[in-house]
C-alpha cells in the first residue's frame, strides 16, 4: 500500500514536471522544425517516451537536458520516418505575408522571421541559450560540440540576426 502511494506521488511529480517543461519544449520544437504541427507531434512523442523512461531520470534537476535530448532525437526520427519535404523559407514567408502584416508586434514578427532564416547550426544553439537558458557548456554537451565552437556559432548567429534585422552593426565586432 505504501509502495503504491509512493509510486503515485512519483508519477504525480513527473506529471507536474512534464506540465512545467512542455511549453518551452514546444517552443524549442517549433524553432527546430519551423512547423507547429510537426513540433506538436514531436513534443507529444517526447512526452510519451519520457513517461515510459521516467525511471532513468534520477535527478529532476537534470530534467531539462534530458527532455531536450529526447526532443532532438524525436525530431531526427520524425525526419527519418516521414521524409519531410524541404521547403524554401522565402516562399513560405511570401505565402503568409498577409498574416505577418496583420500582427500587432511587427518588430517581433520581423525578428522571428529573421531567426527562422538563420541556418540550423546557428539557430539551435541560440534558441537553447535564449529560450531554454542553457549555459554554453550545456549547449556544447547537447550538440556534441566544443565550447569554443558553440561560442563561435552564438556569435555568428547574433551577428547574422542583427544584419537581417537591419540593426546598426557599425560597432559590431569583426569575425
Amino acid at each position, binding site marked *: 500500500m505504501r509502495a503504491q502511494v509512493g509510486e503515485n506521488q512519483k508519477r*504525480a511529480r513527473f506529471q507536474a514536471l512534464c506540465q512545467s517543461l512542455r511549453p518551452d519544449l514546444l517552443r524549442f520544437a517549433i524553432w527546430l522544425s519551423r512547423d507547429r504541427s510537426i513540433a506538436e507531434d514531436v513534443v507529444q512523442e517526447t512526452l*510519451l517516451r519520457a513517461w515510459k523512461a521516467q525511471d532513468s531520470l534520477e535527478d529532476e534537476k537534470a530534467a531539462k537536458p534530458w527532455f531536450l535530448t529526447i526532443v532532438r532525437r524525436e525530431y531526427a526520427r520524425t525526419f527519418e520516418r516521414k521524409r519531410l519535404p524541404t521547403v524554401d523559407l522565402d516562399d513560405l514567408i511570401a505565402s503568409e505575408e498577409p498574416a505577418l502584416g496583420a500582427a500587432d508586434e511587427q518588430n*517581433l514578427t520581423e525578428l522571428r522571421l529573421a531567426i527562422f532564416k538563420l541556418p540550423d547550426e546557428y539557430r539551435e544553439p541560440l*534558441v537553447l541559450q535564449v529560450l531554454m537558458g542553457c549555459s554554453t557548456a550545456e549547449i556544447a554537451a547537447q550538440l556534441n560540440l566544443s565550447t569554443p565552437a558553440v561560442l563561435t556559432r552564438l556569435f555568428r548567429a*547574433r551577428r547574422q540576426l542583427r544584419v537581417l534585422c537591419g540593426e546598426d552593426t557599425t560597432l559590431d565586432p569583426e569575425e
Partner: protein
Amino acid sequence: MIDCNQARRALLAEPESADPEIRAHREKCPECAEYFERLGRFETRLASAIRLGVHAASTSEPVPAGPVDNVVPLQSAPVRSAAARTVHRPRWLALAASVLVAAGVAAVLWLAVPRASLAGDVVAHMAGEPQAWLSDSAVPAARLSAAIADAHMRLLPDAGVVSYAASCEFRGHHVPHLVVQDTSGPVTVMVLVHESARSAVNFDEQGYRGVILPVPGHGAIAVLTRNKSLGTAAVDRIAARVVGAIDWTA
C-alpha cells in the same frame, strides 16, 4: 587585457556574461558601454521574439489542437486535421499518450500549476529584460522611488546597492522590478503586491533559481538569482534579507 573587438565578440556570444574582464572593459570604454546598451535592447527584443506564445496544456489534452496565439504560422496549413494525423501515427499511440500524460494531472494540477505558473511568469519576465543584469552601479534615487511607488514601500539601506529599478507591467499590474547587488552576485526582486502565495515556493527554471515568498498583507515577493552554485537555503537567506529591508508605507 582584452580589447574592444574581443569584448564585443564575447558579448555577442554570451550577452549575460558576468566575466569581470568584460565588465571592467565596459567601465573604461564609453564606445563599448554604448554598444553594450544597444545589445541589451536587442537582447530584450530577441528574448521576447523567441518566447513564442503557446497555450498551457489542459488536463485532458496534453497537446493543444488550436492555433498558437502569437506564433507566426509558417505552414500554409498550420493545423492538420485529426484524420490527416492518423495517416502518420497510429490512433492508439495518440490515445495512449493522452491517457498517460493526463493521468494524475487532475489530482495535482490545482496545487502545482498555479505555483509553477507564477514562478514561470516571473522567470519569463526576467528573460525578457536581460539588460537588467548588466550594471552593478546604483541607480539614481529618483528612479528607484518611481519604480517602487505603486507598491507603497521604501527600501532600507540594508537591501544593498540597487543597480536596476523599473516599474514593469506584470499580469496586468505595474510592479517593482529591482536588481540588488548581493555578495553572491546580482539578485532580482519583484514585488508582487497583487499576487498571493500560501507558502514559500522555491523554483529552478531556465537557469534562474529563486523563491516566491508570501508577505502577509502585501502579496508576495519573488527573489531570483542566476548564481547556480547557490542552494535553496542560500536563496532563502537572501530573500529573507531583502524582505527584511522593505519598509511598507501602507
